[in-house]
């Protein structure tokens, strides 16, 4: 039986087409992926992300525990700030990628992937039990208590205060939600209930993510009401996927799994090798020094072709062309009008500008390795 978010009826009412994702019944689109994608790039889009997991890690040793469990350096986080980070196993393989916010000195909120909630919670709980932290760290899986929405796009800042009314008294103190800076989180009131609002997202656009224990349906409806005049549209997982692929943000299960490391995935920026020991550090430090055997690259199709898809083969070009890797994410880019994707190849093929072929139904179509992100916002002159 698939799980349903508190917004399930709202999706049905809006005509959302529902699919299975990570054990959840979620809308893939309401009107079309193209329309919803463009709404987010040019105006605003509203996503149900209630399937995501929320874990609270607290206690006097919470910071130490997390810094030994995650790749990025949580000591850099002042209260109210968040960062992207990864959780690795001893082999450096990725258990999950996540966002972590410091709520207070000894309390952190982790936003984790829906499909990885059980693995993450079990991994952290076991590490607490077997490590030196004893009763000084508490891991609480709050996933079932939270609903969540993401409201994303260049016009969101114009209407967010119409839904999230008033100030945040902490951990980031601001007079209004639109005063939050990127990666900052505040506690706001909505219908006299406390909700978390963070200036984060997964689309490459400005925007906010709202995490709320009870009021998520009311927040969804209010956002639709105040955002519609600004072009806000409800958006499904289809647009979420094309938006994040254009930005080369990884998706667990595609770019990331327990057999790929953050270094191989091109996420070395989020691995703080200098912070002291943490799970996976030995392997990651060695890879950073000696190099990797595969690298996650971004590519664009160079000719008109069918869009690349996950599991398609990647080939080198020329007379001695051989199979060099596989596509992990691929789609038609709604912003660019061409096929784009990411895939793993040996490092000698990872340089931007390298010609590669993508095998589509037995035929090879030309593509080129490009710098990440694939899509860059046109600069306004």
């Amino acid at each position: 039986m698939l799980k349903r978010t508190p917004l399930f009826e709202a999706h049905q009412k809006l005509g959302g087409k529902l699919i299975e994702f990570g054990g959840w019944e979620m809308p893939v689109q309401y009107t079309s992926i193209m329309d919803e994608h463009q709404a987010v790039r040019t105006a605003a889009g509203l996503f149900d992300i209630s399937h995501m997991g929320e874990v609270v890690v607290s206690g006097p040793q919470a910071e130490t525990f997390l810094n030994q469990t995650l790749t990025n350096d949580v000591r850099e986080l002042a209260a109210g700030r968040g960062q992207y980070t990864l959780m690795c196993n001893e082999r450096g393989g990725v258990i999950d990628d996540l966002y972590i916010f410091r709520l207070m000195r000894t309390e952190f909120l982790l936003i984790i992937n829906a499909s990885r909630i059980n693995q993450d919670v079990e991994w952290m709980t076991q590490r607490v039990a077997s490590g030196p932290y004893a009763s000084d760290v508490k891991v609480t899986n709050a996933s079932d208590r939270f609903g969540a929405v993401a409201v994303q796009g260049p016009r969101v800042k114009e209407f967010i205060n119409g839904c999230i009314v008033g100030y945040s008294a902490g951990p980031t103190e601001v007079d209004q939600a639109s005063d939050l800076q990127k990666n900052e989180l505040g506690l706001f009131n909505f219908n006299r209930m406390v909700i978390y609002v963070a200036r984060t997202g997964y689309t490459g656009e400005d925007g906010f993510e709202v995490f709320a224990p009870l009021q998520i349906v009311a927040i969804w409806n209010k956002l639709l009401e105040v955002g519609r005049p600004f072009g806000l549209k409800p958006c499904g997982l289809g647009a979420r996927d094309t938006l994040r692929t254009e930005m080369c943000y990884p998706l667990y299960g595609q770019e990331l799994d327990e057999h790929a490391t953050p270094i191989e995935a091109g996420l070395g920026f989020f691995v703080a090798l200098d912070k002291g020991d943490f799970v996976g550090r030995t392997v990651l430090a060695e890879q950073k020094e000696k190099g990797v055997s595969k690298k996650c690259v971004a590519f664009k199709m160079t000719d008109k072709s069918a869009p690349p898809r996950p599991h398609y083969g990647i080939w080198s070009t020329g007379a001695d062309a051989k199979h060099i890797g596989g596509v992990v994410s691929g789609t038609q880019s709604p912003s660019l009008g061409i096929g784009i994707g990411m895939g793993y190849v040996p490092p000698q093929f990872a340089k931007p500008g390298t010609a590669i072929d993508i095998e589509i139904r037995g035929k090879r179509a030309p593509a080129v390795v490009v710098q990440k992100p694939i899509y860059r916002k046109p600069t306004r002159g």
Partner: protein
Amino acid sequence: MTNIPSDLKYAKSHEWVRVNGHTGVVGITDHAQHELTDVVFVELPAVGRQVKAGEACAVVESVKTASDIYSPVSGQIVEVNKAAVDNPALVNTEPYGGGWFYKIQLSNLAELNNLLSPESYKAQIGQ
């Protein structure tokens, strides 16, 4: 409400065929294009290819997925719609007109009896 023209025959897999003598024109239904949304690529069979009824012979790709198109009838491909290849959105905007896929020389007219009437197709898609 989806459009189901009364002069066509339909396959369960959402293709239509318009028969004129021994020649058929094949495309996908309004319901199918609506389900696919945003067609971004169309791959058509080679002219001259012999196909069997039920054989996958074309591919239509939306942003999200690639879907096989099954020939509703057997025969030889005699013409393909280059306009749909150049402008795949025609499949969405004119599924029964400018968005047709290919013309086929029917090898077995009796097969048409295996296809669905407009009423049966309508019932199948729950309209």
